[in-house]
């Protein structure tokens, strides 16, 4: 199975609208929204949930005030200043390391795994979709991304799908690392701005670090043509395949308001054709047509 992950560095570059457009073009494929922190793909694809699973993330410490003798050992050992002077754990500060429990002489600390979110297998009008929701303020988004990628892979193998198109998370930290490690290729959606260029370089460095081939697509390219040229030059210097440019067009926003993909909102339009040609360039790219590897990420 091939896995294409659409990322952007910053988010807000039109990544999700473009991923949804690809969903309507892709054949024999599965969708995965690995932006578990601020998932938006479901707003366009309106998935019907078929299966729901709890996501069990890390544990947090809790002190049983009845058993606690106030010796202060836990406060001293906690590296994250998560325990107050009166021996209450602040769940926002607790890293879930379990050190306090390991050293409490009176066995006064409980440390249980918690449900930190949920993940779903759903049906959409473009095929099945795997997606998730991380609880507010939770850690372990990388672990949740690994969980849904594994679920997507199993589902694809089960039902004979050949391709997964993934809407990736923003940034370069744990969720992105979990989303791209071992993927066939990433598509970086970038806007022609100084910050867009900067974000693209960071995320391209990340892809290179994990040896994932990367392609680049410039969205709203006509907002700054000089910067578009700089980004394309930078892409070719880095051996990133430029798969196309998309003009600024408010149809993307209007389609979003209607919960439609661009091909449903304006079929046959120039914009739709441009996205089709980008999709064609991606699917015929050398990196998407290499013999397959089988590596799963190991973020925990």
């Amino acid at each position: 199975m091939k896995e294409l992950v659409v990322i952007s560095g910053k988010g807000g570059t039109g990544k999700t609208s473009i991923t949804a457009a690809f969903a309507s073009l892709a054949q024999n494929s599965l969708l995965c929204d690995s932006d578990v922190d601020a998932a938006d793909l479901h707003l366009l694809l309106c998935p019907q949930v078929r299966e729901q699973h709890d996501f069990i993330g890390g544990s947090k410490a809790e002190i049983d005030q009845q058993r606690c003798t106030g010796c202060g050992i836990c406060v001293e050992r906690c590296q994250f200043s998560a325990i107050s002077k009166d021996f209450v754990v602040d769940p926002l500060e607790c890293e879930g390391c379990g050190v306090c429990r390991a050293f409490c002489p009176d066995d006064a600390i409980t440390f249980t795994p918690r449900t930190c979110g949920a993940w779903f297998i759903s049906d959409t009008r473009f095929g099945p979709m795997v997606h998730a929701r991380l609880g507010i303020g939770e850690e372990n988004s990388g672990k949740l991304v690994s969980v849904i990628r594994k679920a997507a892979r199993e589902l694809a193998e089960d039902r004979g799908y050949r391709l997964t198109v993934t809407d990736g998370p923003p940034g370069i930290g744990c969720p992105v690392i979990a989303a791209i490690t071992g993927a066939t290729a990433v598509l970086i959606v970038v806007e022609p701005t100084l910050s867009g260029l900067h974000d693209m370089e960071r995320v391209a460095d990340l892809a290179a670090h994990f040896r994932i081939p990367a392609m680049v697509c410039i969205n709203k390219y006509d907002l700054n043509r000089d910067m578009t040229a700089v980004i394309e030059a930078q892409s070719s210097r880095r051996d990133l395949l430029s798969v196309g440019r998309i003009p600024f067009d408010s149809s993307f926003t209007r389609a979003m308001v209607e919960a439609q993909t661009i091909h449903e909102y304006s079929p046959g339009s120039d914009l739709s054709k441009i996205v089709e040609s980008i999709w064609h360039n991606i699917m015929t790219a050398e990196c998407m047509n290499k013999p397959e590897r089988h590596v799963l990420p190991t973020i925990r």
Partner: protein
Amino acid sequence: MIISVASGKGGTGKTTVSTNLAASLDRELRLLDCDVEEPNVHLFIKPEHQHSSVQTTFVPVIDASRCTGCGECAALCEFNALAVIGKKVLVFPELCHSCLGCQMICPEAAISDGKRELGTIETGTWRHILFSYGRLRVGEAMSPPLISRVQALIQPQELVIVDAPPGTSCPAIAAMKHSDFVLLVTEPTPFGLHDLKLTVEAVRQLGKPCGLVINRADIGNHDVYRYAERESLPILMEIPFQRSIAELYSKGRLLVEESEEWRRSYAQLFDKISAICAAEEVTP
């Protein structure tokens, strides 16, 4: 007073707001870019006299000559950063959360201090602004420790503007939790609204006062406005979609440098925030 500028998703104009707000004021302040995965503020506020400091965190180093392979360290580690194979301990430093538990528990004192680079903190000045930002090392998975290091620069009684990372999970919370006010930047689109709702929930859990800046105010639809009214969220500023504004941004230029009118709007935005904080009994 500490003002965090946050948004549910990236690309809504958070950096535009934090940089223009900081540049519009004529008093000394500290500006911190805590979006350490994709810092952008330095592209707009180009600091002088910059210096860089490498930030590292603890990872265990096993002294094979002392280690008996008892496995206590691996049993304690919650993050699978240690594994005992036969009598040998394997360390996966990128998974370590630096809790020191392994070092504390080892009966043979076989674990010494190693280091993993988190990234760097860059500091400099730009006119009245003391500016610092974190830059996460490419390949480093954990951003909260570096965000905390950037936040640790804050001195009591200072005016601080924090550019927080997008989202509602641990990095965003790490950046917002010490602030007195959270300024939420959103777009009036379905995606913008959906992500805004999550962020408002997070801010309310933290118990912080907040207000909205609506960017590209004339695209999308009116649902954000209805939501703001229903939730009694004050709309403190609206920025229209204008190609000229988008172009300035694309070149890394500040709106308040080009337009006195916008400078005044941003100064007023600050006054509104101060008034809300005063009402909440936070001293600016």
